[in-house]
């Protein structure tokens, strides 16, 4: 009898979730399509004035990407609860928090990463100056995992309840306000030629905190959900 190491278990978990996501490629495309459509509609609604679009570009892209992520958040643990995979995960000898961390990572890779990849395109459609795009990407790289982690905790907390989508959105919106403020602040500062490192550093600090604490909170919340 040989117990697998943590790395093997993490790899198995990550591979399973990525395979599952790949088998349902249509679901990955949904948030990307949503973000594309929303950003494309702004110039139509506001008129194609360069100065106006440039001023709102950073904020629009950030908010669109974060909202697009909300679309897929709900499904993070629901299928695992329905088919009993979560029970097997809880009973496995590996630390549950770490395994859930892998699930969150897989979720971020499949929902947020495609959005970050198309973010330069979205920003370009709104005439965001090319020099600002790296700052926007950096802000997104920090803000999206933060949202995934915070979202995962809330998904875990509402796991036992039916139709938790509405409740989830209500609870998550106040939590993502700081992320939006700092991310948009960095982009706006970069656009005006001001130093933009401070808000990025704040995002980074929040992300570090969330990486450590969110999986633990998720594990506790899901254990309680199963214990009911």
């Amino acid at each position, binding site marked *: *009898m*040989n*117990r*697998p190491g943590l790395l*093997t*278990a993490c*790899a*198995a*978990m990550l591979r*399973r979730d990525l*395979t*599952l996501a790949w*088998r*349902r490629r249509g679901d990955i495309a949904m948030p990307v399509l949503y973000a594309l459509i929303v950003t494309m509609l702004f110039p139509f609604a506001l008129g194609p004035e360069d100065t106006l679009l440039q001023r709102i570009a950073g904020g629009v892209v950030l908010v669109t990407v974060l909202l697009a992520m909300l679309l897929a958040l709900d499904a993070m643990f629901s*299928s695992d609860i*329905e*088919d*009993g*995979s979560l*029970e*097997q*995960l*809880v*009973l*496995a*000898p*590996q630390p549950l928090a770490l*395994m859930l961390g892998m699930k969150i990572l897989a979720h971020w890779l499949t929902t947020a990463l495609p959005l970050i990849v198309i973010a330069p395109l979205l920003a370009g459609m709104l005439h965001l100056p090319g020099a600002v795009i790296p700052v926007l990407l950096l802000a997104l790289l920090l803000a999206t995992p933060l949202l995934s982690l915070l979202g995962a905790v809330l998904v875990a907390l509402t796991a036992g309840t039916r139709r938790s989508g509405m409740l989830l959105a209500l609870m998550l919106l106040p939590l993502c306000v700081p992320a939006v403020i700092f991310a948009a602040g960095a982009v706006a500062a970069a656009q005006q030629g001001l130093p933009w490192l401070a808000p990025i550093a704040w995002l980074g600090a929040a992300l570090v905190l969330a990486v450590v604490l969110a999986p633990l909170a998720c594990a506790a919340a899901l254990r309680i959900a*199963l*214990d009911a």
Partner: protein
Amino acid sequence: MTAANTAVPLLEARALSFQRQDEPVFAPLDFRLHAGELALIEGDNGSGKTTLMRILAGLLHVSDGELRWRGEPLQRDRCAGEILFLGHQLGLKADLSPRENLHMAAGLNGSREGMSAAAVLTEIGLGGYEDEPVRRLSAGQKKRAALARLLLLPATLWLLDEPFANLDRIGIALVNQLLEMHTARGGAAMVTSHGAVSFHGGEPQRIRMHD
């Protein structure tokens, strides 16, 4: 089995009871399960068989009484990986094949010496269906895909909630054979079911659930 009875039991319940919203789900239970023994949990629908299984697996917490694992109070990290629970929800991913599902289970729990997913699936009667998505399998085949974990994972105590449901006659014989093999090599199992168990390795212990 007198020699076994003097040894430290694998799992022991002392006045175990469970309350849901202050309503007792079952009356206090006492039992001892030694290595190499099989226990049948009997009771009517709603008598708390599944609840008992979930408590023993560590998914629900004990309300009153005590559970001991190898003589010491049962704690999750002490018996992690030694208990294999198979409930009504099979824990299979519908979009993955039986082989991929097994790989995942083995990745978390490890596997028995000299056992491979392919060999286990053939033995359980899923040869030729290894790479078919579980979604397309019949209810009985899904059950077999979940039962394959019993063969592959290195667990000591099996907690099987209705393992015979949806199985055909060959499948039922197969589960009985698995139980026999497991108890013969020093494992223990608890099974809830209505009949269908024909155990040849001695008379199984019967735990009767009352409301």
